[in-house]
C-alpha cells in the first residue's frame, strides 16, 4: 500500500533539472543525476538495486520507506564535487538494507537519518558504509533502532577515510532501545588514514528510561502510553528532519501506527 503519494515519475537513466521521482520496473540499475540537477526520490516498498551518481553540484533528496516484509534494497551513491545527498530511511518491517556512499569529489556532502521499529519476531539488518576518498567532504549518519517482542535488529557501518582525505568532517551515531526480549546488535566502525580530520562516532543500546515512564504515569498516562510516547520522542528527530518536507506527516503517521503494536 502506497502511503506517500505525490505526482512522481519513474526515474530514468539520466536526470536533469528538478523533479520528484520514484522507481519502476523500467528503472535502470545505474542512474546519473546530471550536474546542477535537484532531484527528489521516493522509494516506498519497492525492491531497489540502484547505483546513483551525482555529478558536480547535483542535489538528491531521498525518502526511503519499508513497511512491508521482504522488500530488500541496495543503494550506491557516488558524489562528485559539491554534490549533496540527503536520505531519510524508515523501516517498520523485516528487511535487509544496504547503502554504500562514496564521496569522490571535494566539497561533497552526505546525510542519512534512519529509523527501524521492530516488533514480534521481525528481523532487519541495516548497513550504511561511507567512504571519504577525497578531502573536504562531509558525512552524517544517524540511525535509531527500537525493537520489542523478540525482534532482532542489526546496524553496521564503516566510515572509511582515505590517506589523502584531509579536512574530512564525519559523524556516525547508532542509538538503540530494546524492550522485552528483543535484541539489537550495532557495529559502527571507523577506519581513518588521514590526519587532519574531524570524525566522531558512537553507539548505544539501552532500555526505556524508567524515570521518564514514572513521570508520565504520574500525569495520568497509562504504562503503555508512556512507553509509546517516549519511543516516539526518541525517533522523532529523524522524521522531522526528513529531506522532503511534505513526507514528514506521513512518516510520523507510519511510526505512530507501528508504535501501537510494539
Amino acid at each position, binding site marked *: 500500500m502506497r502511503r506517500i503519494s505525490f505526482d512522481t515519475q519513474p526515474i530514468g537513466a539520466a536526470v536533469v533539472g528538478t523533479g520528484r521521482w520514484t522507481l519502476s520496473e523500467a528503472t535502470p540499475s545505474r542512474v546519473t543525476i546530471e550536474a546542477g540537477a535537484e532531484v527528489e526520490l521516493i522509494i516506498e516498498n519497492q525492491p531497489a538495486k540502484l547505483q546513483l551518481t551525482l555529478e558536480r553540484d547535483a542535489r538528491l533528496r531521498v525518502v526511503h520507506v519499508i513497511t512491508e516484509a521482504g522488500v530488500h534494497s541496495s543503494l550506491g551513491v557516488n558524489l562528485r564535487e559539491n554534490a549533496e545527498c540527503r536520505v531519510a530511511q524508515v523501516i517498520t518491517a523485516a528487511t535487509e538494507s544496504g547503502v554504500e556512499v562514496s564521496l569522490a569529489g571535494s566539497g561533497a556532502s552526505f546525510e542519512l537519518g534512519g529509523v527501524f521499529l521492530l516488533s514480534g519476531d521481525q528481523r532487519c539488518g541495516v548497513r550504511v558504509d561511507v567512504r571519504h576518498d577525497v578531502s573536504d567532504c562531509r558525512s552524517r549518519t544517524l540511525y535509531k533502532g527500537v525493537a520489542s517482542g523478540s525482534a532482532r535488529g542489526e546496524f553496521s557501518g564503516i566510515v572509511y577515510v582515505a590517506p589523502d582525505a584531509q579536512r574530512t568532517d564525519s559523524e556516525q551515531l547508532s542509538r538503540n532501545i530494546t524492550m522485552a526480549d528483543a535484541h539489537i546488535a550495532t557495529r559502527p566502525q571507523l577506519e581513518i588514514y588521514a590526519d587532519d580530520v574531524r570524525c566522531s562516532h558512537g553507539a548505544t543500546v539501552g532500555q526505556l*528510561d524508567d*524515570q*521518564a515512564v*514514572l*513521570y*508520565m*504515569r*504520574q*500525569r*495520568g*498516562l*497509562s*504504562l503503555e*502510553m508512556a512507553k509509546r*510516547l*517516549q519511543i*516516539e*520522542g*526518541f*525517533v*522523532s*528527530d529523524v522524521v522531522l528532519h526528513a529531506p522532503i518536507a511534505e513526507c514528514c506527516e506521513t512518516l510520523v503517521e507510519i511510526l505512530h501506527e507501528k508504535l501501537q503494536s510494539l
Partner: protein
Amino acid sequence: MLKVENLHASVGDKEILRGINLEVKAGEVHAIMGPNGSGKSTLASVLAGNEKFTVTAGSVEYMGEDLMTLSIEERSRKGLFLGFQYPVEIPGVTMANFMKLAVNEHRKAKGLAPLTAAEYLRLMREKSAIVELDSKLTARSVNEGFSGGEKKKNEIFQMAMLDPKLAILDETDSGLDIDALRIVATGVTRLKREDNATVVITHYQRLLDYIVPDYVHVLYKGRIIYTGDKSLALKLEKEGYDWLINDYKEE
C-alpha cells in the same frame, strides 16, 4: 481528603517510613519538614504510587477510597499530583503534546470528551500565565535544557493544567533563586481553593512565607515527631532540628 494511618514502607530490605500518621482535609495546606534522610521524598513517592517502594503496614485513604489499590496513573486521574524533586527530561516529546495527552486522559476518566485544539491552546495560554511561563517553552521537549528553576516552574504549570485535588510538592523550592521562588509560590497560592489541598515538602522556611501552611509537620527517621502551625517553621529555621529531636528522644 487524605488519611494516612500507621504507614510503613520499605525499599528492598530498608524500612524508611516507620508509622506515618497524617490527615489532610480539603482547603488545607500542610508543610512537611525534616532533616535529610528522614523519608520526606519517600512519603511523596509512596503516596504517588512509585512501585519501587513496598508498603508493609498501615493504610491510606484518599477521597474515601483505599489509595493502595490504585496504580500510579489511576491515582493521578483521581486528582493526585506529585511535583517531582528532580523532574526528568523527555527528549523529543514536547510539553504541549505531553500535557494534551495528560489532560485528555484525565477528562476521559471523568467521562468528558477530549478538548478541541482551540480549547487546548486556550487552556495552555491561561495556565502558562499563572506561572509566568513563556508559552514558547511548551514547544520544547519536556524539561530538556531547562534550568532548575524552569523545571520547577514547569511542575507548577503542569499542576495548573491538571487541576488536582491533592498536590504533593516535593522540595519544590530547592535550587530556586528569589524570583523563581516567588513565581512558584505565587502559582501554588493562585491554585489554592476550598476544595483542594496541598502538601508542601520543604527544607527551607522561606517558601512558607509565601505558601502559608495550616499545619507544619516534622518528619524524622520515618515518623512524624511533631506537628505545629507556621510558627514552628520559623522556630526550626532559627534553631534547627536538634531541640526537637532531643525532645523526641527523651520521650
